[in-house]
């Protein structure tokens, strides 16, 4: 599968799509970008008068680029062929810096292992200044059907 096919296969849409572009993808990892537009709805409430991107959204962004895109690629290029769905099963993330409205981030994911349908990746998110804003480990099960 090429990058465009993977993006088209993603099961998300607005307001919960957090992948703009895939820069690189191969069997060992994925790199992609997303820009947090200033008008995203959650900024109205997180926090009152002080918009900051929620940690769960940063985690989701790392999961969509690093885990889901890579899981689709790995299952879609496997011998059996059909790209799967990715069900998130665990996260352990450390947050270092805030991400403000309008910032563009890059997510870099490296596969730790993909065995028995479980994909485990080390992920990090980098801001435009080149600083690591968060990093950690995310895993999920690559399944044939949604939610299962």
């Amino acid at each position, binding site marked *: 599968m090429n990058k465009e096919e993977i993006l088209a296969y993603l099961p998300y849409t607005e307001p919960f799509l957090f992948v703009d572009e895939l820069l690189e993808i191969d069997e060992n990892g994925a790199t992609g970008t997303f820009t947090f537009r200033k008008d995203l709805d959650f900024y109205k409430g997180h926090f009152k008068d002080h918009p900051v991107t929620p940690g769960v959204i940063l985690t989701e962004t790392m999961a969509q680029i690093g885990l889901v895109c890579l899981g689709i690629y790995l299952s879609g290029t496997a011998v059996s062929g059909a790209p799967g769905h990715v069900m998130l*099963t*665990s996260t352990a993330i450390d947050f270092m810096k805030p991400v403000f409205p309008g910032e563009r981030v890059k997510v870099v994911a490296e596969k730790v292992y993909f*065995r*028995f*349908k*479980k994909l485990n990746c080390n992920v990090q998110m980098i801001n435009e200044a080149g600083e690591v804003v968060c990093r950690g480990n995310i*895993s999920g*099960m690559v399944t044939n059907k949604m939610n299962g």
Partner: protein
Amino acid sequence: MNNSELLEKLKPIVANYAHNKEAIDDITEHTDFINDLKINSANLVDVVLDIEEEFGIEIDNLSMEKMLTVSAAIEIIEGKLKEKNDR
């Protein structure tokens, strides 16, 4: 390695991922990983990967699918250890 020695080696591996910690103390060959120990399918993969490392064996997909109870795990580990020693 006999069954009770295998079980003693399995216990700490399984305990890492079990949500039902009390059940770990009462673990027997009949213990079911998912129903009794509340290990989810993703962590079951980690149990199997840790077993591979601990015993120096490789578990194939078919064996993985059968590995749902302590007795099934012990049987598979014994089989793989035997294969390894016969080589």
